[in-house]
């Protein structure tokens, strides 16, 4: 079996991390937003905002660190519109979400066209952080423990969010904002402020994921490059039923299927990409068929909160 050489395995596992990190960040962000009661359909747009601004700043300043900050900023910009229209004004979340996605698709493609015309400048490789000891493990070491800092940050967010949801006052307030906002209001907390925070935090995470795609994953910005990753993030958040750890499992599953496509092609196995791209979705549909039961969503998900209204 020559297929499973060390290089192939390293490429496969490294690919899982590369494809999984944006999905993980998108899923965690969407989960936070949904917990607070905002069905954020605009994350595809937030991801593109982050991918573009992150790439642009990394290219202009030649600093990937600033680029990642720019990605967070790009996500925040798009999500602040979501906050204004959906949380503050209480407009329909699906309409605004899709509007923001379409608008961000157009705006980023337009900006790219204005700034670079038909050129696609490439960024240099991103510096990695080598974790001493762990990085020396064969195969897994170079694939997982000699990576860009964002990879570690994304994975670290999982236990952090678990802690926030389970142990902190903020986590409780976020979940109350999605389940029974009126009760939260009676308790003297500001529902709209907490929802705004959740949507902005979601935008920041998703934007960082987008910047990871353009700066680390591709090294270039291409219009529409997020390619449905935001929508997969929504699916992950819904499948995970409020548990950050499940988002991680889901991101690994989807990342594995996505990276298997590239790794197999590198190994010279001719499978049409379209078939391989179907794998993660087939896998999830099978899981749902076997184990699917009532997915529990926050009671007030998708409903605008207006004080004093029943």
């Amino acid at each position, binding site marked *: 079996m020559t297929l499973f050489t060390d290089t192939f395995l390293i490429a496969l596992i490294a690919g899982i991390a590369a494809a999984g990190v944006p999905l993980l960040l998108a899923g965690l962000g969407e989960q936070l937003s949904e917990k607070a009661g905002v069905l954020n359909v605009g994350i595809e747009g937030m991801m593109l905002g982050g991918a573009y601004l992150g790439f642009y700043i990394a290219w202009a300043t030649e600093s990937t660190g600033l680029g990642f900050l720019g990605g967070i900023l790009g996500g925040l910009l798009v999500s602040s519109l979501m906050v204004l229209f959906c949380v503050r004004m209480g407009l329909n979340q699906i309409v605004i979400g899709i509007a923001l996605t*379409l608008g961000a698709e157009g705006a980023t493609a337009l900006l790219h066209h204005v700034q670079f015309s038909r050129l696609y400048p490439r960024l240099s490789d991103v510096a990695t952080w080598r974790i001493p000891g762990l990085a020396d493990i064969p195969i897994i070491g170079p694939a997982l423990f000699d990576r860009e800092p964002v990879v570690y940050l994304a994975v670290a967010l999982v236990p952090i969010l678990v802690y926030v949801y389970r142990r902190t006052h903020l986590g409780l307030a976020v979940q109350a904002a999605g389940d029974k906002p009126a009760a939260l209001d009676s308790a003297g907390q500001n529902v709209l402020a907490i929802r705004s925070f959740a949507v902005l935090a979601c935008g920041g995470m998703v934007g960082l994921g987008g910047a990871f795609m353009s700066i680390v994953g591709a090294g270039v910005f291409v219009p529409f490059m997020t390619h449905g990753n935001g929508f997969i993030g929504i699916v992950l958040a819904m*499948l995970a039923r409020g548990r950050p750890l499940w988002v991680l499992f889901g991101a690994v599953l989807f990342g594995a299927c996505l990276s298997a496509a590239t790794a197999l092609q590198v190994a010279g196995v001719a499978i049409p990409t379209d078939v391989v791209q179907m794998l993660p979705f087939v896998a999830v549909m099978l899981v749902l068929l076997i184990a699917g039961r009532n997915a529990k969503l926050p009671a007030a998900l998708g409903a605008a909160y207006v004080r004093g209204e029943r």
Partner: protein
Amino acid sequence: MNTQTMTDDTVQTTEMRQKLRSIAGVLLMSLGPVLMAFILSGVILLILKVNPFSYYGYVFGRGLLSPTGVQATLTRMGPLLLIAASLIVAFRAGIWNLGGDAQFLVGAVFCAAATPLMAPHVPVWLGLLAGAAISAIFGGLWALLPAFLRAYQGLNEIITTLMMNFLGISLASVLVKLVFLDPSTTVPQTRTLAVEDRLPTLFGTTISSGLIIGLVAILAVHFVMTRTAFGLRLRVVGGNASAAVHAGLAVPLLTVMVFAISGGLAGLSGGVAILGQYGNVRADWNPAYSLSIVPLVFLARFNGFAAIGFVGLFSILSIGAESAARRTGVPNYFTLVTIGILLVMLAVSEYYSAKRQKAGA
């Protein structure tokens, strides 16, 4: 007697006046946001150093005022109206079918695979009927798995239809590239339906009769949902599913039916696009109409007539912008920005009209 008629008259005139005022209000509420959206996107055009007046001149000159442009606009409306009809059925029944793009494509691919093979052996009308039926059936079948999962497992259909969307788009391109390939060309596409075997055009123009199919479908859906017992049942399910169970409605069965009708209409939309316009499916073809129509249907408040208006506006913009983009050197992406701003403005105007109504009441 005399005074009686006089009061009747005054009542009538005040009613008329009120009606006129409400019509003016509706016009303001629907044209205002369109105007606002054009002003905002005009500002962006200025930043891009393009004259917004000449850009919009080209958009409406092509999309609305030139004979060929209007025909293209009306032809595009056919499939879009069918998608709107598909979404109205589902949304009114409280089912968020977001998998319309895949249902459209799967319907289109099977229709494009089968119809050119049948066409030489059967009369044109039979071929078209069979092609349309095939597209509707496969579109409906593609919606069935989410339907059963929702009806009998209680699984959220937003997840499942989105998943089936990704699956269906890939499946369509696999089928075109590997299975239904036209052996006579090297381009990966299905066999092409001869022009004389396609849907007839209307009154000597190039407008496809798909427009009529779309209009009939959306009016029929509107009528069924608002005027029939079946529609009422579906709306009860959509309004409150547990109340529907207590009212003795067969909720799972109705849910499956809604998915089948909605998927069928989306599939038929794909079929009409093929039979009326394109004649074949090329590899990786995905116009992704459904995603743009979803917010329009929301803004139309699931009302068929309002949806026709919104779909018309969308068609004008998308047809007109294609030509304006070529002539002014603005990339086609700009249309997406305009549509995004337009959707936001429409939602904002609805917010203010609802607020005003509440203040009035």
